[in-house]
């Protein structure tokens, strides 16, 4: 047993094997399980997965081993190639499923069934199997066959409230809806594993990005309509309380919140007025009412801006915090990387990869009291673990592997 295998035994999911057939909807689910110690085998089509072409790339070189998306989301996984459209490939996949606990897949609903490797077929081979399907709209319903991308998911699940009233709604710069659903899929998989632990039964987990987004990042806009007949609309960065919004400052922007604490205490409205220099116009007691301020925020804002423009975002952050206001800088990614807080927590980690070398990646967002030792491998190269998985794990001979390669199955 190698050192890395010993390490894996000390992680929560070290006794499980996961097969992943996933595009961008499923890779984060696989990453989370792999990070928790599951032996996660990523199955790519011969020549490599399409997600290897997602930009940007290291050195802007569009090389299949250099895409940041692929490098990041496939850490700790093993990688094999297999053509699932090919009959021999389907047979090999069924052999892999016999020794697997979980299959993660994000194909269009019905696609794996059409290949003879859908849940019902696989559960006959392995009744303990958990299949976690992650799709745009789920395995059933009128939109089941709709095409999905993050832009589509976010449009249908929260974008209406993002942006300024005078402009179109604005999409998020990340895979917000997609990744939110992927984390739910990982949690649902663990819950299914616990069910299997007590009953011995596998099952099919059906995660729809549309369901998840509508009940999470859409911020209750549906329940607000159902229960109150109110439409939530976009208000830029302005929060329902006021002042609470993004304000410009000397070197960028800061999120400034003031006056939420009642009375005269630190964090209160009088304390906020004192901070911005007690403008005469706002001296009247009527401004002490948060609803009144919200309704007349256009009167208040120029005085806040006059103050914020005299300071840097960092000065506003430090001074605001000293005065107990929830003020924060609008950090650039560079600010975040370089901040003392991020550095103290060692959030960014170095990862050594055979093609891109030693580089800095975002690490896990948590620290553990007693670190689970997990495997630490970079994303696999195309077909990197073919011999290991097909010969060592499945018991194929080198000759058989050679035949499969010649046929284009592997």
């Amino acid at each position, binding site marked *: 047993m190698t050192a890395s295998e010993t390490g894996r035994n000390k992680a*929560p999911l070290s006794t499980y094997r996961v097969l992943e057939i996933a595009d961008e909807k499923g890779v984060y689910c696989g990453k989370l399980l792999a990070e928790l110690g599951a032996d996660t085998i990523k199955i790519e089509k011969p020549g490599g997965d399409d997600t290897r072409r997602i930009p*940007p790339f290291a050195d*802007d070189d569009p090389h299949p081993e250099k895409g*940041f998306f692929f490098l990041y989301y496939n850490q700790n996984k093993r990688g094999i190639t297999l053509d699932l459209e090919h009959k021999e490939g389907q047979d090999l996949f069924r052999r892999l499923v016999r020794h697997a606990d979980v299959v993660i897949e994000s194909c269009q609903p019905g696609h794996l069934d059409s290949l003879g490797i859908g849940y019902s077929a696989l559960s006959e081979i392995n009744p303990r199997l958990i299949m976690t399907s992650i799709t745009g709209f789920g395995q059933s*319903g*009128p939109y089941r066959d*709709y095409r999905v*991308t993050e832009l589509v998911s*976010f*449009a*249908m*699940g929260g974008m*209406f*409230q993002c942006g300024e009233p005078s402009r179109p*709604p604005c*999409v998020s*710069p990340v895979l*917000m809806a997609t*990744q939110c659903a992927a*984390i*739910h*899929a990982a*949690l649902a998989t663990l819950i299914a594993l*616990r069910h299997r632990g007590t*009953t011995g*039964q596998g*099952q099919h987990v059906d*995660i729809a990005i549309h*369901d998840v987004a*509508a*009940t*999470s*990042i*859409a*911020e*209750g806009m549906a*329940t*607000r*309509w*159902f*229960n109150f007949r*109110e439409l939530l609309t976009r208000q*830029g960065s302005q929060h329902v309380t006021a002042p609470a919004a993004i304000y*410009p400052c000397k070197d960028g*922007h800061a*999120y400034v919140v003031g006056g939420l604490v009642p009375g005269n205490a630190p964090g209160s409205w009088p304390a906020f007025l004192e901070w911005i220099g007690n403008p005469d116009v706002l001296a009247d007691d009527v401004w002490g009412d948060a609803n009144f301020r919200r309704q007349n925020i256009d009167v208040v804002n120029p005085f806040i801006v006059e103050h914020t423009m005299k300071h840097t975002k960092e000065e506003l952050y430090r001074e605001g915090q000293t005065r107990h*206001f*929830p003020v*924060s800088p609008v*950090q650039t990614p560079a600010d*975040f*990387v370089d901040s*003392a*807080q991020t550095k*103290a*927590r060692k959030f960014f980690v170095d990862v050594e990869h055979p093609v891109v070398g030693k580089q*800095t*990646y975002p690490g896990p967002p*948590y620290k553990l009291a007693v670190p*689970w030792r997990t495997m630490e491998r970079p994303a696999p190269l195309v077909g990197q673990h073919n011999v290991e998985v097909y010969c060592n794990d499945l018991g194929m001979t080198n000759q058989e592997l050679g035949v499969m390669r010649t046929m284009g199955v592997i």
Partner: protein
Amino acid sequence: MNDLPLQNVRVISFTNGMAGPYAGRLLCDFGAEVIVVETRKRLDTFRRPRLVYPKDAEPDFDRSWSWAEYNRGKMSISVDLKREEGRDLIRRLVSISDAAIDNFGARVLRGFELDYRHLTELKPDLIMVSMQGLGQTGPDHEHVLWGMNLMPLAGLTYEWGFTDNPTPTGSGGFPTDYLAGVTAALMLIAALEYRDRTGQGQFIDMAQVENAATIMESIYMDYTINNRLQERRGNSSPYYGPYGVYRCKGSEQWCAIEVRTDEEWQSFCDAIGNPPWTDDAKFATVLGRVENSAELDRHIEEWTSTRGHLEVMELLQRAGVAAGAVLNGEDQANCPQLLHRKTFVQIDHPKMGVAYYPGVVMNLDRSPGIARRPAMLGEHTEYVLRDLLGLSESEIHELAESGVLT
């Protein structure tokens, strides 16, 4: 109810607002007994009755909609943690529980000596997930931060908005709170797996800003590896076209459209009836469509602006083109897919009556979850003290009389 997968898991919830409560909501759908520690003396921000259900009811923290939505399915006990007797009850409760979730400010539980260091002395195999904005360590971790401060700190707000607008927009909401909540729930169950196999507990110190940065991987790696600071892109893509959010007929109706391949472009042209401009050679390739996106978008908006957003979506999706109407709350409430999936469910409540709630969205076909009603403040105090901690009626009476259970 008896065969839900998390039925024997008890979680104590030291939570406020959204991120922490969301974690517990996901767990109790599958049978976990999640007990929220509350007090009338310092209400959860979401218990404050700013919006009550039904709309015209008297202000009442048991009718506060925000709390109900994020805490449905849990139990509630009212205990004043500022009293030693109250803290003692919580210590005893934690010692017969499996896990705790904490999204209070970093100083709060430390001040009560109910942080992991203290609780683990009573319950060595305790699992605790703390999920402060900046975590439990580092020079700034005790800062006063609300949900709206976290996306700005994570670098996400900076990247979110239109190119020609000097001010980033960010989101009016708190999408990263949900990412934090579900990640916390995931880590808690993973720790449970580990404890069941090894007997060892765990402390998970999660920083919500780091969790948000986790899904900004390409933006961060472009910076750390290519030394490039990405700028805001609005609703445009440097890689695909058409790509955008297009104005449709009527007020505030929009539809997002994304075409990636030449094949999809052909389907798109067919779906909109192949108007003459689609023959223009400059739109024949992906590169041409990206380079001429402003002109392309104007043509597309001519077509979309004569149709409703749902009609645009349906026409394009029928042709195999990725299109999504920008749904508002009413659209979601009427969405045939969400209705088919029972994504929102009606639940009865003794004070609020029947209302719509988010349903169970993790669909497990053999062990489906259950969406249960929210608790009234302190509704389960007696159950916890009598049935779980074994206190006598007179002991409970005495605690109540002295104001500990308020």
